[in-house]
């Protein structure tokens, strides 16, 4: 069964206010402990030997010299891990295949990208571990490699996986291919749709992979004891899924692994998967010592998941009055070394902001010699939306329509049939467009070489498996044990607010704590913008259970039926004067004697939350283009998004602002640069250019609240949508400023300058 708690409108005291976050003081004083901040007595330092090649067969691995080095306590290679059959499980982004997972964490037959792990060592110091890596001898047979999807799709391309045949093609192919999967989504009759069109625009767009760029490199500490128990401290977005993955690839029973989540120094989708964790456990098992492994920034860039780079071809048709009659797209997404890109998600949100009769989207999931991609905030959507929102801008311009009016004319609303299946429920897309039209940003004057662009985004959002426990302590304060990681957005504050609201007690009487894997039942990763929605729902269920028990205790004390007791503002009260004249009992009064009136008052929720409300946003951006250097400056930026309900508006704004700035980085300067040998040229923050404070302006925010009917407070996920529109919005603003349509990301100065020169020649 699934669980949904319906929205009921009511007056709110705590929800919607801006209290200090529970983890705040620890974070401003340096007390908060992240993955690399944990240490155990006797711990060893673990390091990884990585492939220098983009694609090579491993002929032999000789670690004997490394093992003999004094201070080296354990070395592991592919031989230390069981091979895995093809078996799928859910991780952050779609599904993972354990056969690939075990090969990604430690190469087996072949190395498939620069940075692919080949061996790992645990030693008494970092310098000894570094020396040990240099003593390892790996013999490679270097193979031809392929970095770009366009090359990977060619008939004569080097093939990464000889056993990979394109799924989704009939008849089943007989030749292995880098195209792992072909997906088709659609509705209506695309050819008939284009026949109705007065204007058809077809364009190709190409983007590079970008990295989540979290500031905390992956870090973990594993302690394998002689009785086969494992303790693992690690910074991830989901300690339960991490436990499941480690148990699987190490063939250890789930109950023997206890994962203690640390504070997470950013994830954005990039910390749903195992990398060093199983290696640290294996090294600890072999050395009988705790092993700590912290990635360098270079390792983070070379070997953890960026998002896909892609080739996207979009063709759209509309009538003279701006009604879109057909939308067709081909999405060719990099999966990295193993199948499983975000192309299914991207295919489903390419056109989903619009109510379209005729749609066809073909997606290809393509393996290339790059690190396996991971989720990154609205996985895949920004790329496809870059294409579609740019073409809509061009259509509006050619038809002489206002770009917001054109979107309003086609906008999805409640009841709109999506091309991937269901109809949309209550959504706030039109509301965000209308707010954009009213916003003073839209009419502010622009100077020479300045331009304004708008674009919109949609994300599904999810709920899923969630366990939460609430205990009313003996003094009437409340401890809320949650199992979804606070991935940064302040979700602990939001949970405490919802529980305080339910119980009618002050916010600071509720202490939310993220429990380890032994404290709660399974929780799915904090991804898909599900945290505040799903755990919020679970926390409300817990609180309501506790309220029922509080009422029962008061009823017993007053010797009245439970129905005769109501819960109001933190007190049990008689439901009416008919029940009797009793002094209201506070939560503290009831809690004080709870041990003697039946035991601790608690609430539990072990649910599979459903009914996540889709999120929509509209962005407005002003840019200035330097015609002589091609540099683009962001002058002004406004994010308008439907949140359902902003439980803690300051952290909602924070999500909007942070997502927008990540999108700005993606649009302008972030990219993976590979050389001709398939080696990553910019694995550091100096040349992988995430925006710095002086690169961006203040980011204005407008919160729209169209409640999600399937959440007690109307919450929708909000974290994904803000990264979707920036690329397209900025491209549209660049066009408005200097008349060039950018179809390549990043829209970096050399590309802009070239486009300006090409335009000047024509």
């Amino acid at each position, binding site marked *: 069964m699934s669980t949904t708690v319906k929205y009921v409108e009511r007056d709110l005291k705590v929800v919607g206010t801006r209290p200090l976050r529970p983890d705040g003081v620890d974070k*401003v*004083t340096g007390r908060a402990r992240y993955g690399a901040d944990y240490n155990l007595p006797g711990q060893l330092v673990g390091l990884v030997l990585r492939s220098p090649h983009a694609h090579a067969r491993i002929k032999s691995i000789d670690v004997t010299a490394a093992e003999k080095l004094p201070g080296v306590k354990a070395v592991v290679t592919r031989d230390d891990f069981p091979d895995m059959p093809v078996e799928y499980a859910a991780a952050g982004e779609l599904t993972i295949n354990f056969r690939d997972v075990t090969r990604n964490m430690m190469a087996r037959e072949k190395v498939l990208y620069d940075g692919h792990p080949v061996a790992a060592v645990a030693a008494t110091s970092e310098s000894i571990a570094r020396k040990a890596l240099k003593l390892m001898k790996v013999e490679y047979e270097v193979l031809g490699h392929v970095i770009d999807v366009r090359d990977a799709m060619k008939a004569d391309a080097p093939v990464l996986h000889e056993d990979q045949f394109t799924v989704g093609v009939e008849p089943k192919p007989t030749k292995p291919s880098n195209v792992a999967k072909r997906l088709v989504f659609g509705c209506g009759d695309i050819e008939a749709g284009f026949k109705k069109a007065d204007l058809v625009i077809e364009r190709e767009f190409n983007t590079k992979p970008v990295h989540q760029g979290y500031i905390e490199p992956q870090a973990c500490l594993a302690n394998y004891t002689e009785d086969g128990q494992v303790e693992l401290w690690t910074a991830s977005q989901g300690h339960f899924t991490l436990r499941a993955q480690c148990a699987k690839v190490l063939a250890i029973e789930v109950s023997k692994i206890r994962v203690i989540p640390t504070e997470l120094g950013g994830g954005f989708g990039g910390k749903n998967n195992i990398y060093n964790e199983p290696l640290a456990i294996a090294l600890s098992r072999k050395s009988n010592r705790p092993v700590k492994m912290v990635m360098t920034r270079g390792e983070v860039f070379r070997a953890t998941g960026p998002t896909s780079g892609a080739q996207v071809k979009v063709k759209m048709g509309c009538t003279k009055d701006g009604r879109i009659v057909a939308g067709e797209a081909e999405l060719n997404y990099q999966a990295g070394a193993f199948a499983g890109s975000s192309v299914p998600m991207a295919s489903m949100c390419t056109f989903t902001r619009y109510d379209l009769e005729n749609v066809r989207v073909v997606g290809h999931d393509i393996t290339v010699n790059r690190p396996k991609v991971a989720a990154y905030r609205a996985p895949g959507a920004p790329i496809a939306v870059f294409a579609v929102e740019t073409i809509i801008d061009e259509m509006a311009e050619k038809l002489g329509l206002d770009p917001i009016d054109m979107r309003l004319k086609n906008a999805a609303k409640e009841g709109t049939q999506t091309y991937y299946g269901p109809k949309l429920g209550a959504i706030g897309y039109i509301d965000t467009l209308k707010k954009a039209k009213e916003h003073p940003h839209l009419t502010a004057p622009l100077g020479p070489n300045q331009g304004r662009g708008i674009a919109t985004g949609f994300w599904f959002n999810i709920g899923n498996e969630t366990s939460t426990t609430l205990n009313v302590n003996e003094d009437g304060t409340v401890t809320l044990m949650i199992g979804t990681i606070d991935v940064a957005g302040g979700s602990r504050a939001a949970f405490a607010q919802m529980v305080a609201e339910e119980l009618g007690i002050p916010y600071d009487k509720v202490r939310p704590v993220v429990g380890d894997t032994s404290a709660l039942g399974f929780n799915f990763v904090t991804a898909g913008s599900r945290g505040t929605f799903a755990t919020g729902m679970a926390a409300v269920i817990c609180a309501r259970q506790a309220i029922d028990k509080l009422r029962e205790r008061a009823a017993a004390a007053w010797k009245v039926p439970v129905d005769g007791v109501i819960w109001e503002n933190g007190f049990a009260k008689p439901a009416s004067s008919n029940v009797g004249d009793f002094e209201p009992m506070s939560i503290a009064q009831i809690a004080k004697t709870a041990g003697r009136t039946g035991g601790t008052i608690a609430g539990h929720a072990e649910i599979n939350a459903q009914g996540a409300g889709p999120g929509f946003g509209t962005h407005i951006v002003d840019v200035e283009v330097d015609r002589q250097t091609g540099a683009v400056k962001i002058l002004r930026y406004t994010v308008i998004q439907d949140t359902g309900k902003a439980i803690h508006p300051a952290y909602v704004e924070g999500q909007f602002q942070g997502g927008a700035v990540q999108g700005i980085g993606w649009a302008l300067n972030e990219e993976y640069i590979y050389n001709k040998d398939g080696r990553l040229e910019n694995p550091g923050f100096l040349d992988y250019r995430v925006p710095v404070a002086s690169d961006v302006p203040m*980011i204005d925010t407008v919160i729209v609240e169209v409640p999600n009917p399937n959440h007690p407070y109307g919450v929708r996920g909000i974290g994904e949508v803000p990264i979707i529109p920036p690329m397209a919005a900025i491209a549209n603003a660049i066009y408005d400023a200097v008349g060039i349509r950018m179809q390549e990301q990043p829209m970096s100065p050399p590309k802009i300058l070239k486009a300006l020169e090409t335009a000047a020649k024509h």
Partner: protein
Amino acid sequence: MARAHVTTTINGDVVDFLCEADQTLLSALRDELRMTGTKEGCGTGDCGACSVTIDGRLVCSCLVLAVEVEGKAIDTIEGMADGENLHPLQKKFLEHAALQCGICTPGILIAARSLLERNPDPSETEIRYWLAGNLCRCTGYHKIVEAVLDAAREMRS
């Protein structure tokens, strides 16, 4: 190789530790002294998470050798609050929701304090350029800049 003995002052306390000659100050703080409030984000001076001050000068502790700080005075995030009284910047960061994941926060607070010591009334632009060496991937910087402006205002009055 014999480890070097270093005596220094950290957050006002005289502290001594042993380190290897090529060990960084960041590593000495975190691994020898277990002062883990100072964070490592890149190890190459590009992110600012490891910011500390040495004799009042803002630096990346990942690009300082631990042996270099003999006789110097180091200030880290652990010394920013005065007992249980948070520094105005710390308070304003909390009030303005100027932190999310928090991994960059210690470095940004140290850098922001260093700015306000030199310039008690910085403009938005001055704050943005001063903090350009401190990457934050969560907030988009908006609320950080607001918090610094507000803290500066409060500290001036």
